């Protein structure tokens, strides 16, 4: 975590809020506008502010993005259904990004920010080994 005072952190967070569309998604256009306005009126601690802005922006993107790890094949219909169900459950638009991970053996593992939904064979084997340990 970047060390900075509370006011700078608060300012960076409000800049992130300004970078969001009405549906809660990060908009490239709005981010550019925020960056341009910062460039036009440079202030003290700009480097730290930009670092904080980047940190909070990444966190925001993670919150609206689901990493879907899979082993084997993943049909586009399944991905779309995951996207729809997650958006409903979290109450915000979630976009799903598919990533192949053969170590899962079979099944899926979905990560949204710090939540992990594990429905993979590797995960179940891990649970089994824990319960008999």
């Amino acid at each position, binding site marked *: 975590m970047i060390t900075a005072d509370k006011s700078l952190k608060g300012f960076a967070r409000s800049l992130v809020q300004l970078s969001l569309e009405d549906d809660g998604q990060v908009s490239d256009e709005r981010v550019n506008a925020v960056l341009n306005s910062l460039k036009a009126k440079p202030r003290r601690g700009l480097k730290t502010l930009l670092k904080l802005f980047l940190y909070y922006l990444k966190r925001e993107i993670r919150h609206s993005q689901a990493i879907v790890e899979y082993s084997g094949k993943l049909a586009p219909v399944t991905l779309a259904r995951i996207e729809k169900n997650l958006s409903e459950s979290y109450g915000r638009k979630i976009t799903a990004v598919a990533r192949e991970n053969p170590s899962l053996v079979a099944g899926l593992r979905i990560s949204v920010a710090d939540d992990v939904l*594990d429905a993979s064979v590797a995960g179940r084997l891990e649970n089994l080994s824990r319960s*008999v340990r």
Partner: protein
Amino acid sequence: MSSIIEQIEKEIAKLDTSAVKTNTGTILSVADGVAKIEGLSQVMYNEMIEFPGDIFGIALNLEEDEVGCVILGESTHLKEGDECSTTGRLLSVPVGKALLGRVVDALGRPVDGKGPIDTKEYFPVEKIAPGIIPRQSVSQPVQTGIMPIDAMIPIGRGQRELIIGDRSTGKTTIAIDTIINQAKINRAGLDSGDPDFRPLYSIYVAVGQKNSNIARIINTLDETGSSEYTIIVVAPAADNPANQYIAPYAGCAMGEWFMENGMDALIVYDDLSKHAVAYRQISLVLKRPSGREAYPGDVFYLHSRLLERAARLNEKNGNGSLTALPIIETQAGDVAAYIPTNVISITDGQIFLETDLFNQGIRPAISVGLSVSRVGSAAQTKALKQVAGKTKLELAQYRELAAFAQFGSDLDARTQAQLERGARIVEIFKQPAFSPKPVEVQVGLIWAVQNGHLDDIAVNKMVEACISLQEFFITRTEDLMNSIRTGGKLTKDTEADLAKALEDWKLTFGD
């Protein structure tokens, strides 16, 4: 082989096939046994966090962007970027009678090499103390077997009595003597088959102690046969501060199990000064604001919430009790330091041990003037109260007179007699370590000195006389001792029997 396969099949059948949801985080930094974690947005305060390699930690600082977590165990192989997850469980320890006779660490895991502990029940280490309604006043005694304590500073079941003093003044010895005496009483009581007998189980929590000291204590308890009624929780000096911080709460949870199940337990916290130091270390590493002597602001709450869990529950709530004997080590006798004053104000009295008395050979080195029991007198046995009621005052008067008598030799007969009596009382209260005295013997000895039956014995022969008289009481006057133990106040007949026994003893003593 087939049984293993069956066991695995059972485990598979039990497994839930639906997706498992976990809340995860990533380690940002690990230093001094504390991990800063990003993520864990759903973590609870005091929740157990699971790290790779079967390592657990407790979430203690829930901040805006990160979570501060103290690691319980070896943290050297954890690194930045490692993933950890919440467990949904508050820190809990195994509880129950299966722990008696065992030595466990701060998490309740056995460290005595006697195999796993067969218990299914777990209690959270942090729990809110019983409120006002389920409690009742202290009314049953805890016999420490230490004469000056049982006579002048009596302790009751459910009381919190602080043992305070400088290093090497016999604080731990008093606690161990008490545990040994409970084991003796338990054994005799359970053997007697008395259905009303309530055994008192003991829990000894060693915080920040040297391993050699802990080993010595374990040996003493084993040798005296006390370990079968005792649970030992260890967080030695070599353990990380998180374990030292948790250990008293873990021991308390084990004691609470006895209390909540209608039984009586005694817990010794040895010692809370080192506990406060461990907590200060954790707090400073967690960057919490520091206050007086660099202790965090909640160091009072640290001890008050622990000691408030000692209680005597009423009949409706099972009639169980948890008695606490916290120990505090002072520096150069300074009882007005931060932690000692905190704990003095929380407890129901204190036993103050003095280095000077210890060095003069008065052991246990209890300072009668500074020691007090605020609630225990209600629990003192009637016979002991009858014979020892005036002892504290007499001893205090003796100390005062003795100080003045040093300056002049012309003393009137009354003062001389008072000094003689005081010197004898001091002598009969001397007691070697790990040899607690039964209550009936205590009554007999104090009655003898109070009624002048030992006035003809030279002061320097008093210790020898007491040992001989104790032996005489136990071996030759069994009926008399039984009647004192089971009866209430001393009757005229009992006093006559005591006088007769003393006459008989005098014929044997000094041969």
